């Protein structure tokens, strides 16, 4: 936003809501602090009158020293441009904030997450249950005064490791030490999971009058659990569906089976230590994860990587996109029943790209390659040559082959066209991102809408399709591979020689106090990292806006009215990775 626009916006906001909105004046902070009671009204006005139609992320922050909870909203215009950050504050011991689900349905899961992990209640939320943790969990772990089992210290590095490192294995110490909290009257045998009951009741029953279904036959609705151990769910993910015959009338996703509280770990870690942990979010796209996190921390530090490093970053991120999309297409075909043949054809090509990652970073999937202000090491000359051959010769050929193989296939078409439709309005409202959003007719790509790194230098098209069904999501991915190859061709031709790191590599970076939101167009959609620093070696708050998680918000809307077999295809077309969904 230019300075002028900011002033203008502020004037309009202040005019409309006198006294309810103030600029966030804290050092290193931006955006506006909004009066809690006025939040919904302001959000509505921003959405309807000022074009902020896309709620990207909702983040809770525990400001323990100030005895306050803060909820941070990042709003964007789907037409492009930078963020508008809104914040509301509420006391810690009774944290209540009005829910924004009525304005932005995309806040649904994110508010549930903030409730689950931070204990902020969202008034007016239609279904405020825990989302990542199990029902019996006691407490809200992202609160700063909550301590995990095996708690050692507030932040790493731990003192016990050096200079007197008497090793002990964690299992040999007290396995459930004093940090396991449960209510005093709790008995494991007598415990009934309330959440399950709430979950099933939230599904509701659709009554067509006297218990009959649409056709007038007397039927019962049944509830089917797909997953968590189900081959179609791409990991441990569960969909509870209510069926009327074969038709879906209700669906609730249940997740968290792979939850490890990535964010709590991240807040114990130092800034650099988080880099390899980000690899494990969307473990298929570690390079993109590194990218987003590096951007956020670099924003806080106020540094920029040198030219060559920028090129290397773009090359790696785009190769990752190719890897992800061919994988997603392969798995979608698995979900449609083409058992593994298309999958294995594309995995061949993926292997060749992973070989490059291995040569560059030392690991095929857990790359841990980006550093603040650069990358870990230079790209070897022969790896660069291999990339050239791949992007100029082999991969375009293979993509064409994939296109010929699948796009015209009538079975694929019948299974995918018109299935799982998400309209443009639904996609925007539900904060869908990436190929899911673009297949619904919204040409929104962070690389274009809010360019980062050096993406403004490359020629490429934002792929967009308009039907919003499974087939269009497939087509968007296919075409995005081609566009990535286009970027790669330009990047490998123009990569300059030179340094790959700004300043000296440091293991303890100095991060000034403040907040930053770094976001990239990861293959699965907008991946954002919200980092708050208080000047100490460990981040005060570290939040991940995970596209795999938020893209599931419209899953129910997409599935209702479809057949049970189609839900598998619909889930496949969203392309989730549970490492990122559950964090």
């Amino acid at each position: 936003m230019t300075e002028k626009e900011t002033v203008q916006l502020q004037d309009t906001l202040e005019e409309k809501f006198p006294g309810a909105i103030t600029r966030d004046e804290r050092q290193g902070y931006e955006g506006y602090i909004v009066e809690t009671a006025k939040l919904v009204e302001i959000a509505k006005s921003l959405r309807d009158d000022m074009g902020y139609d896309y709620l990207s992320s909702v983040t809770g922050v525990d400001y323990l020293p100030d005895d306050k909870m803060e909820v941070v909203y990042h709003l964007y215009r789907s037409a492009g441009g930078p963020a508008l950050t809104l914040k509301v504050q509420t006391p810690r011991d009774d944290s209540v904030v009005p829910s924004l689900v009525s304005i932005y349905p995309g806040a649904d899961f994110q508010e549930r997450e903030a409730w689950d992990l931070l204990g902020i209640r969202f008034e007016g939320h239609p279904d405020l249950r825990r989302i990542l943790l199990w029902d019996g969990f006691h407490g809200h772990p992202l609160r700063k005064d909550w301590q995990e089992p095996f708690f050692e210290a507030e932040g790493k590095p731990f003192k016990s490791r050096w200079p007197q490192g008497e090793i002990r294995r964690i299992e040999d110490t007290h396995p459930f030490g004093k940090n396991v909290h449960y209510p005093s009257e709790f008995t494991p045998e007598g415990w009934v999971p309330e959440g399950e009951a709430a979950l099933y009741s939230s599904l509701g029953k659709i009554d067509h009058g006297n218990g009959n279904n649409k056709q007038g036959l007397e039927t019962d609705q049944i509830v089917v659990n797909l997953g968590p151990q189900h081959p179609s769910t791409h990991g441990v993910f569960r969909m509870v569906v209510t069926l009327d015959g074969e038709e879906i009338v209700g669906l609730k996703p249940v997740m968290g089976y792979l939850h490890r509280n990535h964010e709590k770990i991240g807040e114990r870690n130092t800034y650099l230590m988080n880099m390899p942990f980000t690899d494990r979010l969307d473990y298929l796209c570690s390079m993109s994860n590194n990218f987003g996190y590096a951007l956020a921390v670099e924003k806080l530090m106020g540094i920029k990587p040198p030219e060559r490093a920028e090129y290397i970053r773009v090359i790696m991120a785009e190769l990752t996109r190719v890897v992800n999309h061919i994988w997603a297409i392969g798995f979608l075909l698995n979900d449609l029943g083409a058992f593994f043949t298309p999958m294995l054809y594309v995995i061949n090509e993926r292997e060749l790209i992973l070989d490059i990652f291995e040569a560059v970073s030392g690991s095929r999937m857990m790359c841990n390659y980006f550093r603040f202000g650069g990358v870990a090491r230079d790209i070897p000359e022969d790896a660069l040559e291999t990339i050239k051959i791949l992007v100029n010769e082999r991969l375009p050929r293979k993509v064409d082959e994939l296109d010929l193989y699948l796009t015209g296939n009538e079975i694929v078409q019948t299974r995918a066209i018109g299935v799982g439709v998400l309209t443009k309005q639904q996609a925007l409202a539900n904060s869908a991102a990436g190929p899911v959003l673009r297949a619904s007719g919204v040409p929104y790509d962070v690389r274009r809408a809010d360019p980062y790194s050096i993406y403004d230098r490359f020629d490429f098209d934002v792929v967009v399709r308009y039907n919003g069904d499974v087939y269009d999501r497939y087509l968007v991915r296919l075409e995005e591979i081609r566009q990535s190859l286009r970027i790669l061709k330009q990047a490998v031709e123009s990569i300059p020689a030179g340094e790959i790191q700004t300043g000296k590599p440091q293991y303890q970076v100095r991060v000034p106090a403040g907040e930053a939101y770094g976001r990239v167009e990861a293959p699965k959609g907008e991946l954002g990292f919200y980092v708050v620093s208080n000047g100490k070696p460990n981040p005060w708050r570290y939040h991940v806006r995970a596209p795999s998680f938020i893209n599931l918000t419209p899953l129910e809307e997409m599935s209702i009215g479809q057949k049970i077999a189609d839900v598998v295809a619909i889930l496949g077309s969203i392309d989730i990775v549970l490492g990122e969904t559950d964090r």
Partner: protein
Amino acid sequence: MYGIGLIKGLGVTIKHFLETYVDDLRWLGRGRYYNEDALKIRQSTEARGVFTVQYPEEKLSVPEEFRYIPFLVYEENPDGTREDRCTSCGICSKVCPPQCIWIVRSNDPETGRPIPAPTEFYIDIDICMNCGLCAEYCPFDAIKMDHVYELASYERSSAHIYNKERLSKPASYYAEIRPKNYAREEAARAEKEALKAAKKKKE
């Protein structure tokens, strides 16, 4: 016509199927499998036909930067004694994300000053996430990432805590698995020494 797309698609599978035989023919007489030269090409950008590797008879070679479980580098003196490069400065244990490096530094009993060598050095490899940060930030090039990846064992609780003895490997091994890195570091070291010597001379 309905079905054209299907037939075209099946054409692609048939092409893939036939290619496996064509590629067999290419290696006729020389052997497509259990042959280092063939393996290289089978895994390159020219790969055609069957892509899989007959592990464990065939093994992919790993690139120089490949990283798996760190090891400690020691120099071999001409008289056969070992000299640890590690000075027990503790940087690696501070940078390690899962905090799985444990170092015991000892003090000189007379002066009470720290001795620049570790008495013990442990890595819990069950916890090590193979991130390579320790190797990257060690100022003495004393800890490096290994290439050995076949580490399965029957006994987890004791066998997976590597002590200094188990972790130590000679510099010659390091030079062998990471020739480029080794050469670069040695060159840098030589340059530094030369600079020092030149400075001394001036004085």
